[in-house]
């Protein structure tokens, strides 16, 4: 019976991948054809050429893309829930489950934010990263649904890992924003942005946004590390032991602490701050990939 649930889960995850792919295509179509200026619509204001942007042409494509994203989210949610039922525990007992839950949280956060702000310029990126995450998960990381080993049987699995997933998602989002900043800055130095990037917010806004995201989630990351320490004390007899995962969590914490200090106290903005943000985010990504796949230590369970 439980294996049946695991199969059901896999079908849902595959379907979600297919819909994410469709959503990606729709987003790509929308981005590519969104802003074609109507003939003779440009006016001049002094020496400045003012382009009139018209999004109407692709509004339908944009709506379809978002609808597909919602559908993919629902399918993935079903997949994650079915996986949890089949394993009889929270669906983040190994790296495969962590990845699909992470992808779910990532798209969920985007859809929630979409209700308030028009973030559809991010949709292209969100759909492709969800697709790649799920693809990696199901091909390379897949493990049969299995019960938890005794060390993981704890309420802290819920608290510690949920905090880590949320912080990780927001850190990576801040990285994307900082990356967008650096990419757009090159255009701004020379001349105007290409037409298809017109809708991405101003550099100043991106700069502020990546800082806000980090400042918002840094306390949660601190909490995740402390919750992990409390759990480690109960399970392994010490709250801190420089296990590779712990070491890299510490490095990530220190890197973001440096980022916040650089911004708030020293007044870094723009390019330097964006690079520091990306550096800090990559320590998180390294921790997730390296320590789980090649690392040794107490955070490696059940193969992956």
């Amino acid at each position, binding site marked *: 019976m439980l294996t049946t649930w695991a199969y059901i889960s896999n079908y849902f995850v595959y379907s979600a991948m297919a819909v994410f792919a469709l959503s990606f295509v729709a987003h790509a179509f929308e981005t590519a054809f969104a802003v074609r200026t109507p003939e003779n619509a440009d006016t001049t204001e002094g020496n400045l050429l003012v382009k009139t942007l018209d999004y109407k042409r692709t509004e339908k494509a944009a709506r379809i893309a978002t609808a597909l994203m919602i559908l993919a989210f629902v399918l993935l949610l079903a997949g994650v829930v079915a996986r949890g039922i089949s394993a009889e525990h929270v669906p983040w007992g190994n790296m495969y489950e962590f990845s699909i839950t992470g992808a779910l949280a990532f798209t969920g956060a985007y859809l929630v934010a979409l209700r308030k702000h028009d973030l559809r310029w991010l949709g292209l990126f969100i759909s492709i990263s969800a697709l790649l995450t799920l693809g990696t998960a199901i091909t390379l990381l897949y493990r049969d649904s*299995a*019960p938890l*080993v*005794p*060390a993981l*049987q*704890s309420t*802290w699995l819920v608290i510690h890992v949920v905090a880590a997933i949320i912080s990780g998602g927001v850190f990576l989002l801040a990285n994307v924003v900082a990356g967008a900043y650096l990419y757009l800055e090159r255009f701004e130095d020379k001349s105007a942005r290409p037409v298809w990037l017109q809708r991405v917010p101003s550099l100043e806004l991106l700069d502020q946004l990546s800082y806000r995201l980090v*400042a*918002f989630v*840094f*306390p949660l990351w*601190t*909490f995740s590390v*402390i919750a992990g*320490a*409390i*759990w480690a*004390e*109960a*399970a*392994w*007899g*010490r*709250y*801190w*032991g*420089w*296990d*590779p995962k712990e*070491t*890299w969590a*510490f*490095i990530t914490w*220190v*890197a973001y*602490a*440096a980022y916040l*200090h*650089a911004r*708030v*106290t*020293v007044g870094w903005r723009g390019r330097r701050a964006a690079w520091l943000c990306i550096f800090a985010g990559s*320590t998180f990504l390294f921790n997730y990939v390296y*320590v789980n796949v090649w*690392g*040794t*230590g107490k955070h490696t369970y*059940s193969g992956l």
Partner: protein
Amino acid sequence: MSEQRELPELGFLALSRFAWRQLTSMRTALILLLLMGIAAIPGSLIPQRPINPMAVRDFYRSNPELARWYDRASLFDVYASPWFSAIYILLFISLIGCVLPRSVEHYKAMLAKPPATPKNLTRLSHYQQFANADEALNRATQWFSKNRFRVRIEGNSISAEKGYLRESGNLLFHLSLILVLVGVSFGSLFGMNGYAIVNVGERFINVPTTYDTLSFGKLKGDNSLQPFQITVDKFDAKYDPKTSAPLDYTAWVTVEDEGKISKKVVKVNQPLTFGSTRVYLQANGYSPVVTVRDSYKNVVLQGPVPLLPQDGNLRSIGVIKVPDADPAIGFVVSFVPTNARTASQGSISIYPELLDPKLLFSIWQGDLGLDSGIPTSVYKIDTKNMTQIGLGSVKPGDTFNYSSGSITLETVVPWVNLQVVQDPGKSYALIGGILAIAGLLTSLYGRRRRIWIRVSDSGVEVAGLARNSAPGLEDEVKKFISFVKGEK
């Protein structure tokens, strides 16, 4: 080249003041912070002696030359190395040097009134001017006190400030980091950590001699262990029949502490607690209970012999030393809880529970080396001065006879590895951690801002200033103005 600048002579005091200022500057702190992050990296890539001594030994064997250089740079023990310590000690000195003066300053600022209203308000942000409203200053005072601003009233103007919590939180965060460091150091100086293998049915008494390994903090006396006793009544391990992965470990124990006897359950995430000492269930394995007789059928050894597990199916190895036999006998043994034969490896275990247990051994006769005075491992025999006299295997209840005696496998009992940890500093570290989060939240979400109001013949002037360009002041000023005007 021709000109040589004379540097003014710096006295010792001035020089040290200069050094102190450099050390406590924000730039230095930032560099030290990043440096600490980078310095922590090698410890996660190179095997560490306190965490995995076996891996360090392997590294030495495969790269002896490189290993020697690593060792010179303390790369096998990064987190206790002089250079890592130097970074975090400097960082904390820098932090204390920065935070303590700021705390004093902040305390004074909290007692003082906000600074006087600037003469020229027009230059400040959110400046607005409107016709004189009735009772403008009174209404302003009312609004400020309702919204808990601290105010300075000077004749026709009020200067109000709010959001000191931001700096309070910031300072609380940094001070709690010091508390965390104190807790960590306290725990490592006054704590202890030890492991003991206890067979089911046996009793563990908390004195140094019952431990297999035991280490004390630098300032902890070795006669200060808490006097408790633990008898392991029963141990139960459940495994997944398909994958042999463990599902549950539970030990039922009888605890005797300060004359009180109680029954307790120990699980992996559920240690026993005696004050600041905790007892953890860390590992388990099997102890075959054997009886060894000499050629006259006299019993020369009887009892359980703990063996060390080698894989997930608990194939275990070890030795049985019989110094009382004449000549001395030693068994090099391998034990499988569920036996299966393979062509390539001989007997292997295919399941960690005792479904078809079998003890396999080679028998050695000669000098066990126990009288040389050099400590020897209970899991190894040096067979240099011994000769092999036989090979055999037994199942529970069987007896195997060899030239100078016999060995009987009576039964097999499980053993558990208890880890005993005393860490008197951990509660400080925990409190430090909780306060740090509280401080972070207040400092990251707190907004410090000022609002001024001045009433003159030309009308009412209002302006505001937000520190760290925090958003939201515009709305607040709007609300303030509409209240002053009496619109609400």
